[in-house]
């Protein structure tokens, strides 16, 4: 078992692409996400008809983080056409005679949402009774998407890369015939799976520490709880990923087939990782999350990072991962019977 773990470590270290994939790829992807989903200082552009709008409101609009432009009467007749022709304008804002407010936007997007919220601010400052004060128990309104969903990405990357690397390595071992050779030595079936888990476990630990330090100290993600528990959850998740990869390799005879199985293995995990709020998924399909190892990891990370929980708040999820790994270990050991009855 120790021999196998040692071999896995040595083998991975000798393959630069695997090393890059485990250590560099998650940092690269997180950086990319940081820039894509980070704070944007985008200023929305709103078109108004100066003559049909009360002067105080115009002043208020201008006081907001908005670019206000004046649109001619003619264009106001066909606001949708105007927006199609002027893609730099995010919204057309009018007040009709009966004082009802019309806002026409190009498409539901973050830019439109930004225009909308700034218009709302302008309206409420004119009419204090319509002012809404928002606050959250956890998190803050001005959190960027990266900050409020960061925990999902920590979990996803901890799982995905180790899953792919270990699954591929095991499939290669099968197709290259080394597995048959291995099974013709006195090694026990369980030891094969344990050795693999141990070997990749070492990489999982280093990877989790690397990701956590990079996210919290370089990308300025914040955690209320102790980040040690985040590392623990990520390592357990990565260890589950090794067993999951081993399971997939049972159903694949080539590396190409591992890739072909991605729609069944990785994509559901991404959907149920918490990227989409599970309560909003119809027909109680959200409950399927309990089948996805990523869910347990991400939920544990969220509870530490966002809710400030500790072991007592996350032990259920951690044991969920351990249970998952244990069941996969049993199944994988049985699956190896295909190569040797004993």
């Amino acid at each position, binding site marked *: 078992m120790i*021999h196998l773990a040692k071999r896995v470590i*040595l083998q991975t270290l*000798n393959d630069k692409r695997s090393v890059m994939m485990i250590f560099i790829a998650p940092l690269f992807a997180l950086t990319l996400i940081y820039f894509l989903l980070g704070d944007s200082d985008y200023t929305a552009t709103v078109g108004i008809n100066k003559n049909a709008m009360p002067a105080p409101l115009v002043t208020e609009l201008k006081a907001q983080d908005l670019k206000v432009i004046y649109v001619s009467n003619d264009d106001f007749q066909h606001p949708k056409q105007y927006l199609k022709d002027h893609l730099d304008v995010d919204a057309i804002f009018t007040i009709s005679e009966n004082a009802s407010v019309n806002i026409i936007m190009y498409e539901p997007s973050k830019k439109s949402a930004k225009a909308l919220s700034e218009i709302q601010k302008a309206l409420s400052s004119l009419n204090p009774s319509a002012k809404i004060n928002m606050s959250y128990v956890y998190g803050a309104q001005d959190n960027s998407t990266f900050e409020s969903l960061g925990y999902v990405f920590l979990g996803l990357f901890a799982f995905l890369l180790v899953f792919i690397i270990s699954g591929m390595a095991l499939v290669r071992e099968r197709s*290259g015939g*080394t597995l*048959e*050779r291995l099974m013709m030595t006195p090694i026990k079936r369980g030891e094969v799976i344990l050795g693999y888990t141990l070997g990749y476990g070492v990489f999982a630990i280093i990877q989790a520490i690397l990701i956590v330090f990079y996210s919290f100290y370089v990308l300025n993600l914040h955690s209320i709880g102790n980040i040690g528990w985040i590392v623990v959850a990520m390592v357990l998740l990565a260890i589950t990923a090794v067993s999951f990869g081993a399971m997939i390799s049972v159903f694949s005879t080539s590396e190409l087939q591992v890739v072909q199985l991605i729609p069944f293995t990785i994509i559901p995990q991404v959907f149920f990782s918490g990227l989409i709020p599970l309560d909003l998924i119809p027909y109680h399909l959200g409950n399927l999350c309990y089948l996805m190892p990523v869910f347990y990891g991400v939920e544990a990370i969220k509870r530490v990072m966002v809710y400030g929980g500790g072991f007592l708040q996350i032990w259920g999820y951690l044991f969920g991962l351990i249970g998952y790994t244990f069941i996969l270990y049993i199944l994988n050991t049985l699956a190896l019977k295909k190569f*040797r*009855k*004993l």
Partner: protein
Amino acid sequence: MDIKISNVSKSFEKKEVIKDITFTIPSGEICCLLGPSGSGKTTLIRLMIGAIAADTGHIQLANIKMPNLKMLKKIGYMPQNDALYDDLSAESNLRFFGGLYQLSKSKLEQRVKEVLELVDLTEHRKKLIRNFSGGMKKRLSLAASILHQPDVLFLDEPTVGIDPVLRRTIWDQFQEIKKSGTTIIVSTHVMDEVTECDKAALIYNGSLIEYDSVEKLLKKTNTGRVEELFLMASSRGGVVK
């Protein structure tokens, strides 16, 4: 360690690949499984070592029914493909496979050194396998199968793709290994190699068509070449079909 194969049959996807084969390989000899490509040599070897289970019949090694976990220690197996780890050096490959036999550290190092010398790869021991030539891989694969000094050695087409000079040295090595008391079962489709062996089992379409000492087999032919025996079998088979 006699190897007793009794009424063994094996089918893959309803196609019978091994058809009711029975024979016994005595201890300490080199027995060659001779047959054209696709005749079932690899399948027969995998049945003998217990990598796959027979549909009917059974296989005994030294009167112990296979597959058997304890017997695996006494078996060496060199698969038809090289089955080595591309991302490891020659030395690391050997250390890994040797380690699985629970050799002590000093014994393991000593054996690694010995087998590397035997297959003439000492100077390449630190090279990664992905930079090895086909012939070097074959030799290292052989080295990996004899590390733990097995009592029975199964070699599946060990000389395919190897130049004649190297083939000669490899056969010399087999003779050396035999002298140390190891039983060797070697498969080949090169008819000439039969003269290197003590016994030969001729496999054709999954059936054992001849099994005898090489001397006696050659006497059955007019020209002294084993091909004849296969041609006879194929004309017989042609009539049946």
